[in-house]
C-alpha cells in the first residue's frame, strides 16, 4: 500500500496550464423487492448470508431469471436521462475472478445497453447550466461484500483473513456512464458534484432507488485526465486526451468535488515533473483529503465479454416504453422552478432550501396547511440546525410535515410565539404527542387577555421610571428592556409585538 504523499501543485496553477476532462460512472442500487436474477429479498444491513439462494450464491446448475421491475426501473432512469431505449438488447458476462463474485463472472451489459445517448442538464451554483452527455445506462448485478479482517484500513493487502457476505450479491444495479466531460475548466469539480447531485435528485424522484451515498446505494467512480491547453485561438477539442485515473467509490457529494480537485492537482504535479500518468484506480481518503494508488488498470484488461447464454434478450415493447415515459415524474429542475414561483422564494432562499434537501418536506408541509415562508423558516432554520447538530438527515428527524404545519399554524394564529413553538417542538421530539397536545399539556399559550397584558405593562413602567423616561425622550430602543420585563412578568407567554405596541402607546 502506498503511504507516501503524492506531490500536488496549486489548483489555480494547474488549471491555468491544463484542461481537465472527466468521465463519471455512477452505480445506482435499485430498490426492487427482490434481487436482479433471483427471488431473494434486497435488505440493507441484514445478518450476513441470510438472503441467499442457489442463484445468487452461484451454485452449480443455478440459472438467472430477469427481474421485470428492475428492467422497468432501468428504462425509467434511461428515459429521465433523455436516453434512447434499446428495442432489443442482451446481458453479457464480464469474466474475472474475485472471491466475492459467486460465479466469477458478473452478469452485466456490454455493447448492447438498455439505454444510451442521453443527457442531463445540470444547474451550477451561479445559475448557469452545464449539459452532461450520457453515454449509456446499463443493468447489472452487484457483487458480494468482502470484509478484510486484520491488516490496515480494511484492505485485502495484509489482512489476516477475509469474510464474504453474499446478501448484496445479485442486487440490481444501474450503471450510468457519462461521455468525456470537457469544457468545464476550473469548474470541473463543481460540475461533477452538481451532476451527481442532480442525478441523485432525479433517481430519487423516480422512486427507483434510495440513492443513499453513505449506505452505498449510490456510488461514484470519477475518471480524471489533464491535457495541455490549446492556447490562444487553438481548438481545445483537437488536443488529445491525457491518461486517466479512476478514483473509486467516492461516497458523498463533497467527496466527489474534493477528489476531482485533488486529482487535478496531483496529475499536474506528475506531468510537471516530466513523468506520465499511470493508468490505475485510486482510492479516495476522506480524512486526508487525498487519493492513494489502487491497482493498475489498462485498456488491455480482458473481461472476455460474451452474450449471457442463460438469458434471453430483453426487448421492451414500444408501448411499454411509452407507458413508462408517461409515468415519469416532473423533472427535478423544472419542478424546482415551478415551486420557487409558487412559493415566492428568492433565488438565495431557494438555494438554501435545495442545499438543505428540504424541497419535498416543504412541499408536504405547505400541503398540510403551512405558509411557504413559515415552512421554509422551520426546515432551513431550526430543524436544519438541530438535524445538523445530531448528524441526522432532515427526513429522519422524527417530526412530521403535519407537525410543522401545525406549529406554523399555531404561531400564525397567535397562540404561540417562536420561543414557545420551539418548546412545543422539544415536546414533540420527546414523544409527548402532537403539537396541540404538547402545548396543552405544557400549558404553553400566549396571553390573549389584553387586560392582563396592560396590567403587566403598567407594573413594569411603574417599576422602571428611568427607562420609561428614556423612551419618552424618544429613545425607542430602550423599550426593549421594558418588553423583556413584561415577558418575564407573564412567564414568557406574552405576545412581544403587542407588548411593544402597548408600551409605546403609553409612553409616546
Amino acid at each position, binding site marked *: 500500500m502506498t503511504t507516501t504523499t503524492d506531490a500536488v501543485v496549486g489548483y489555480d496553477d494547474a488549471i491555468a496550464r491544463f484542461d481537465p476532462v472527466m468521465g463519471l460512472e455512477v452505480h445506482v442500487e435499485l430498490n426492487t423487492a427482490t434481487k436482479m436474477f433471483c427471488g431473494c429479498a434486497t435488505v440493507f444491513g441484514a445478518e450476513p448470508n441470510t438472503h441467499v439462494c442457489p442463484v445468487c450464491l452461484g451454485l452449480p446448475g443455478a440459472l438467472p431469471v430477469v427481474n421485470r*421491475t428492475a428492467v422497468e426501473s432501468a428504462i425509467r432512469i434511461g428515459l429521465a436521462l433523455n436516453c434512447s431505449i434499446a428495442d432489443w438488447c442482451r446481458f453479457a458476462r464480464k469474466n474475472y475472478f474475485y*472471491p466475492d463474485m459467486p460465479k466469477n463472472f458478473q452478469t452485466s451489459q456490454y455493447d448492447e445497453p438498455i439505454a444510451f445517448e442521453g443527457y442531463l442538464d445540470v444547474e451550477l451554483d451561479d445559475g448557469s447550466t452545464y449539459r452532461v452527455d450520457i453515454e449509456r445506462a446499463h443493468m447489472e448485478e452487484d457483487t458480494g461484500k468482502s470484509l478484510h479482517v486484520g491488516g490496515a484500513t480494511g484492505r485485502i493487502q495484509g489482512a489476516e483473513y477475509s469474510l464474504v457476505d453474499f446478501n448484496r450479491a445479485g442486487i440490481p444495479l444501474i450503471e450510468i456512464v457519462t461521455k468525456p466531460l470537457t469544457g468545464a475548466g476550473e469548474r470541473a469539480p463543481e460540475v461533477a458534484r452538481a451532476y451527481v447531485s442532480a442525478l441523485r435528485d432525479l433517481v430519487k424522484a423516480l422512486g427507483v432507488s434510495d440513492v443513499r451515498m453513505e449506505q452505498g446505494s449510490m456510488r461514484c467512480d470519477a475518471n480524471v485526465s489533464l491535457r495541455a491547453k490549446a492556447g490562444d485561438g487553438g481548438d481545445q477539442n483537437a488536443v488529445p486526451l491525457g491518461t486517466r485515473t479512476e478514483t473509486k467509490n467516492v461516497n458523498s457529494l463533497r467527496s466527489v468535488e474534493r477528489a476531482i480537485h485533488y486529482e487535478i492537482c496531483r496529475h499536474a504535479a506528475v506531468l510537471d515533473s516530466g513523468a506520465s500518468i499511470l493508468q490505475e484506480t485510486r482510492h479516495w481518503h476522506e480524512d486526508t483529503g487525498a487519493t492513494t494508488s489502487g491497482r493498475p488498470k489498462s485498456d488491455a484488461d480482458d473481461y472476455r465479454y460474451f452474450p449471457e447464454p442463460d438469458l434471453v434478450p430483453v426487448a421492451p415493447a414500444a408501448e411499454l416504453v411509452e407507458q413508462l415515459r408517461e409515468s415519469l415524474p416532473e423533472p427535478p429542475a423544472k419542478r424546482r422552478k415551478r415551486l420557487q414561483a409558487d412559493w415566492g422564494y428568492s433565488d438565495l432562499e431557494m438555494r438554501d432550501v435545495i442545499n438543505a434537501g428540504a424541497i419535498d418536506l416543504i412541499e408536504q408541509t405547505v400541503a398540510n396547511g403551512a405558509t411557504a415562508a413559515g415552512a421554509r423558516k422551520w426546515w432551513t432554520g431550526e430543524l436544519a440546525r438541530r438535524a445538523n447538530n445530531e448528524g441526522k438527515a432532515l427526513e429522519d428527524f422524527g417530526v412530521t410535515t403535519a407537525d410543522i404545519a401545525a406549529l406554523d399554524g399555531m404561531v400564525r394564529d397567535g397562540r404561540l410565539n417562536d420561543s414557545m413553538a420551539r418548546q412545543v417542538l422539544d415536546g414533540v421530539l420527546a414523544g409527548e404527542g402532537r403539537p396541540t397536545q404538547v402545548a396543552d399539556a405544557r400549558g404553553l399559550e400566549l396571553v390573549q387577555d389584553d387586560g392582563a397584558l396592560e396590567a403587566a405593562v403598567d407594573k413594569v413602567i411603574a417599576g422602571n421610571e428611568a427607562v420609561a423616561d428614556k423612551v419618552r425622550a424618544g429613545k425607542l430602543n430602550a423599550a426593549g428592556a421594558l418588553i423583556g420585563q413584561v415577558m418575564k412578568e407573564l412567564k414568557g407567554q406574552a405576545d412581544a409585538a403587542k407588548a411593544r405596541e402597548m408600551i409605546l402607546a403609553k409612553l409616546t
Partner: protein
Amino acid sequence: MPRRLRRSALQCRASSTRSENNPAECSARTSLSFFAGPRKESTDKVLGDTETSFEPQKVRILTDIIRQSAADLAGALASKQISAVEATQAHLDRIAAVDDDVHAFLQVDRDGALAAASEVDRRRAAGESLPTLAGVPIAVKDIATTRGLVTTAGSKMLEGWVPPYDATIVTRLREAGMPILGKTNMDEFAMGSSTEHSAYGPSHNPWDLERIPGGSGGGSSAAVAAFEAPLAIGTDTGGSIRQPAAVTGTVGIKPTYGGVSRYGLVALASSLDQAGPCSRSVLDAALLHEVIGGHDPMDSTSIDAPVPPVVEAARRADVKGMRVGLVKEISGEGFQPGVKARFDESVQLLTELGAEVVEVSCPSFEKGLAAYYLILPSEASSNLARFDAMRYGLRVGPKGIERPSAEQVMAASRDAGFGDEVKRRIILGTYALSSGYYDAYYGQAQKVRTLIARDFNAAFEQADVLVTPTAPTTAFKIGEKIDDPMAMYLNDVATIPANLAGIPGMSIPNGLADEDGLPSGMQFLAPATKDERLYQVGAALEAALNERWGAPILSKAPALAVKESI
C-alpha cells in the same frame, strides 16, 4: 460484436421475466436372476399395442421385473400386480449384481429410492390417482442436482458435494413418484464421448465390458442397457444422450432446446445443453419426456408451451406419406462399413413402410464441429469459473506457500480438481473469448451456427424429418482414443448440428454391425418444437426393425456375469 441468432426475444410482458409479485422460489425436492437372450412374449409388447398393458386383466404376471419396459412396469404397478418397492428393489438388486463390472453408477441411493417407492405404494393403497410412471424407478445422470444426494458431475472438483436443492427435472421425477435409484457416471462436466474422462473411472459397455458405453452420458445408457434401470436421465450438449444410446443399443432423445428445464443441471455450454430421456424403447422415452418436459419459470430459456404430444406420436408409429430427408453430407460415407450398411437398410425399411425418402443438402455441417469446439469451450470456460474453492467443492492449498492468498488457493484447487480434458477446453475457451480473438473465433462460430440453422430450415422445407447415422462407429475399446482428442471429438460429427441449431434429435438402435456384432444407431432430426415427429417415425422404424431382427436389438446383448452374494 456481431449480433447473432435472435432467439425468442424477451418481451417485458412475457413470462421470461420474473414478476416481483411472484418471485422465483429460492430453492426449490424379491431378488431376481438375469437371463440373457430375447424375451419372446414381450417382443411386440415393447413396441406395439402397449396401451393394452395398462388394462389389468390383460397384463401377465411379471416374473422378470428388470426386463420390463417402463410402460409395462407402469401397467403392472397400476394394476397392483407388483408394488413400487418390489420394482425398486429388483433394480437395486440388479445394480448390486452387475454394477461392479459395468460401473454405471457413481452413487446408489438405496434408502431414498425405497422410501420414495414405499410412499407410492402407500398412496396407491389409499386409492389416490397417481401419475403414469409412479413407482417406475429411474437413474439420473450425475450432472443434475439432487437435494441431499451427492452430485459430482464426474469431477473431483465436486467430490462429496451435497446440493441443497433439486434440479427442476429431479423435482418433476419426484412429483411423478419415480424412485431415484442413484446417480450415473459421466465424463467430467460432460466433456467427452466415452466416460473415460470421468474422475471416478470409466463405465463399461454391457455389450463388451472392454468397450466404452459412449459419453458423456455413458453411465445412463449403460445402466439402461444392463437392465439396472428401465429409464435414465441424460444430458446432450453435442451428442451425449444420442451417441451413448447408439453404442449401447438403447434409445436416447435430445429434445428441442428449451423443451426441458436446465435449472439444476451443472452447466457445460448453456446455449447447447439439453436434458432428455434414455430408455430401451421409443414409447418409454416418450412417457419420460412428458414427465420432465414443459415450461419452467426458473429457466429463462425454457419454452413457454405445452410438451409436444410425444406419447401419442409414439403410439401412432406411422410413417406413411412422411417425407424423410437423407442428409447428403452425413449419409455414412467414411463411417464404419457396418454402421453405413445398417443405416442404408434402415432408410430402405422406411421406404417400405411408406415414407418418401428425399435427399437434402446441408453444406454448412462440415463447419459444425469446428464451430462447436469454439462455442462449447467458450461458454464452458465461463460456466466453470465458479469452481474456485471459495464456497463449495474441493479446496487445495498450494504447495510450499505458508499463507496463500485467495488467488493462490483458487489456482491450486482448479489445478488439482479439474482433469486434463476440462483444462484443455477451459484454455481453448478462454483464448477464443479473448479480446482481439473474439471476432475471429467466437464471433465466426456464431455465424456458422446461423448458417447451420439456415441449412436445417431449408432442409425441413423438403422433409418432415431428417435421418443420419448417429455415430461414425460402434463402441470402441477403452483407451483406444483417450490420447487423441481429435478422434474423440469426431464421434459427435453427426449429432452436433442439432445442438447448434437447437432442434430435437433421437437415436434408436438399428441393428448390429457385421464386422463386430455391436449395435449401431439411427438418428432422426426434426424442426424445433416438433419433437413428436421423432417419436412417430422412431417408433415405426423400431417396430419394423424388431420384426426384422426377431426381437429388440438389445436382446442380442450377451449376458453379464451376475454377482450372487447380495
